[in-house]
Structures are given as C-alpha cells and as structure tokens.
C-alpha cells in the first residue's frame, strides 16, 4: 500500500468549506505547520479547527494567515487564548472571539483528549468526573451563548459525572518525525502529544512527516500510530522556529 502524496494540494484534496479539521500539536510542539500553511493557501472557509492545547498559539504565522482570509468559523480547544491578557487583547484572534465572529468552545484538556480517543475507538460517549462543580457541569462552554448546551450528569460512586460525547473530525492534520509509505508514524519527544489520538479520531488523517522512510525501517514495536489510522503521508522539510519567542 502506498499512501504517500506528491504535494500539499493532493494532501488536502477533498477538504471542503465547513469541514471539521483536527490540528495536532501542543503550543509550538508537533504542530503540522506545512499543512496549516497549505490550508490557508487553499482558502477553504467556515472551518472548525478542533485542537487540543493551543497549537494555533504555537503556530502564530499560520494562525494569522487563516485569520486574514477569515477561514475560521470555530475553534475547539482547552487553551486557545493567549496567556497574557494584554497580548491577547491586541491579537485579531481574540478580537474576533470577543466580537462573536469566531466561536471558541473550551473543554478540559484531558476531556478533550478523551473525546478524540472515543471517536477513534468507537465509543459514543462516557461519564467524566472532570469539571463537576464548575461551569463545565452547567453547560458546554462557548462564547456564543445560543450554542451553549445543557449537560447530562449522573452520580456514580458518589461523584457527579458529566456525559461527554466523542468528537469525530472530518480530517486530522498531524505532524510526525518519521513515517513510512503505509502510514506508520513515530513522533519525537513531546511533539507526540495530541497527534496520535487525533490520527485515530478523524475520517481522513493526513500526516506530514519530516522523515519518510522505507517499509521495515521503523522498528515494528516502536511505531506510535499504526498505519491503519492514516490515509495520506506527505514528506515535509523540518522547519526550525524559535520556541522562546512565543
């Protein structure tokens, strides 16, 4: 099986306006920057970007490109806002969230991870203790008031738990250090983070890999994401960036 694609156009084929796209990465680590740039280039609109922990804060140039073309309808994240209130207030992302032009839906990080895991593992929902007694229990958290949905809860072993549903994206864009033509992937250090679970969750997972290796070169018992979860593999250069400039 050969899942390699020749360029970014082929990699992003089929992404239509309104698509829900998972974006791997945790702040600056493991973000699929080349695929994000290509997504901005492609210009698809009304996108929902389903994140884990601030990949768009870690890939600011790519975020700015998507914002300047008004491609984003909604962002799902656990940490989607700049930490500094002053910096945030000046940034177009926060300004568009404030104005209600972009919806920001927020979940606890581990809950969000589990929503992707459930989607990939065929589990429609689970009862989650995290967030009990907080606003999370009252309704889904979003800046768009009419989209706040009441929560179902159940007390299990004396603990209030919240019904959380699987989150199944149409596409996932993930970044791996190494991959082979059948889509087996290995991540490097903390660039692993959300990439694996998002790869399992989406209908179509597109992996950018810094190193495209021949079949058999990845140690079989050390593969992080088995190729069954991956539809397309794109070889990309390793981009250097200044992690301390965030």
């Amino acid at each position: 099986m050969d899942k390699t694609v020749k360029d970014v156009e082929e990699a992003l084929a089929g992404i239509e306006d309104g698509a829900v796209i998972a974006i791997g990465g945790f702040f600056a680590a493991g973000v699929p920057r080349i695929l994000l740039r290509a997504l901005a280039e492609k210009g698809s609109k009304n996108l929902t970007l389903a994140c884990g922990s601030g990949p768009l804060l870690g890939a600011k140039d790519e975020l700015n490109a998507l914002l300047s073309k008004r491609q984003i309808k909604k962002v799902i994240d656990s940490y989607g806002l700049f930490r500094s209130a002053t910096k945030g207030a000046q940034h177009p992302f926060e300004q568009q969230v404030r104005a209600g032009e972009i919806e920001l839906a927020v979940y606890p990080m581990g809950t969000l991870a589990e929503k992707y895991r459930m989607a990939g593992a065929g589990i429609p929902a689970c009862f989650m203790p995290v967030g009990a007694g907080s606003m999370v229990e009252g309704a889904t958290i979003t800046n768009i008031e009419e989209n706040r949905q009441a929560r179902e809860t159940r007390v299990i072993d004396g603990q209030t738990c919240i019904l959380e549903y699987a989150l199944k994206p149409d596409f996932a864009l993930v970044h791996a250090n190494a991959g082979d033509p059948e889509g087996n992937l290995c991540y490097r250090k903390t660039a692993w983070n959300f990439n694996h679970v998002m790869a399992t969750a989406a209908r179509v997972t597109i992996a950018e890999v810094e190193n495209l290796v021949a079949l058999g070169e990845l140690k079989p018992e050390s593969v992080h994401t088995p190729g069954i979860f991956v539809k397309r593999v794109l070889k990309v250069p390793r981009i250097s960036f200044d992690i301390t400039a965030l």
Partner: protein
Amino acid sequence: MKRFEGLPREIIALRVSQEIEDNSYVNLGIGIPTLVSNWLEGREVILQSEIGMLKTGSLAEGDQIDQDLINASCQPVLEVPGTVYFDICESFGMIRGGHVDVTVMGAFQVNPSGDFASWMNPSRGLNGVGNIGGSMDLACGAKKLFIAMEHTTNDGSPKFVRELTYPATARKKVNKIFTDLAVIEVVPEGLLLKEIYPGLSVEDIQSITEPKLLIARDLKEIEL
C-alpha cells in the same frame, strides 16, 4: 497596594518544595508552581508534565534547546536519564487516574471549603470562555493539591474569600495553600492558619483574609 511585604515568589516555591516527599510523582502548574522545580534538583522526585513526559528535566538554554521538547507551559526543557514520553490520553490517564502524588497550582481565589478558581478572569471580558488547559483534570485526579499564590491581589484585595466570585476550577479539592505571608491548611472546619511570615501578627493576616481563620495550636513562623 499590597499591605505587607512577604516572601518573594522563588521562596514561596522553596517552602512548597519542603512539603514534597521523596519518591513522589509531582505535577507543577504555571506560575509560582513552575519555580518549585528549581528546588527539587537532586531530590528523588519525578515531575510529570501533562504534554506527555515523565521525569522532566530542568529548563533548557541556548544550544540545549530542542523545539520538540517543551513542558506544558511551553518552556524548553531537558531530557534526563529515565525520561519517558507518551501520548496525551496516557498523560491524562495518569492525572485523572490518581497516579500523581502531588499537584501544585496557582489560583485567583480559594475558599474555606477548598474550592478554588484559576481558569478564567471574568474581567478579560471574553463572553464566558477562558483557558482551562489541564487545570480541572489535575484538580480532579489530585491525591494532594497544593496552591502556591500571593496572599492578595496586586491591589490588595483578598484571594482567600468566603465565596468564589471567579468561576471554580474544582470544589473541595485544595489541601494546603502557600502564600508570601502564610501557610494555610484546609480542614473540615475551614482555613487553619499554620505558619506566618516573621514579624506579622495573626491580626495582620486576618485583615487581608476574608473568611475567619482558625488558628493552629502550634502556629509558628514560616521556616525555610
């Protein structure tokens, strides 16, 4: 204006580090908690970082920086012998599953029931959204939850309050709070003042603490 000068942030972190036992797995949040790691070097303590790392090394500088190696606050860190990486679900399984011995977090407010608020500052005016990050997961799964924070806000308003006015992160989870001026334990009856900054009186601390404090029988000065 703050009424009293107390411990600098680094020294609050030192006091917290003394409360962490050897052979513990520990998760440190953003802010003063991050500074605790400076005092744990050489100790038998393993730091868990929710990004997916066990045995997080110290901060990396200059040529040591690796763009694929950061902690959950997005700071470049070092790998050490015994470091392990894993995916995010595994990481939060450790956290929610009660495998982390001590969690240290910052807070905007704490009340006498051990509820605390840390994830959203309503004055930012963002229509009910904020950065939850891993805070609620960490609080939910914490075996022992310490809060490290300034005793009051910069303008002197109390951070120990009768009722939270900021949105809660979790309820009835806080065990102990370490501030620049005091060490306070959450007990079933409320907030128990255990240690106090040298030179201050119980009345001084009470004057900047909204709920009525209980006073430990063995109340002492903060020892470092």
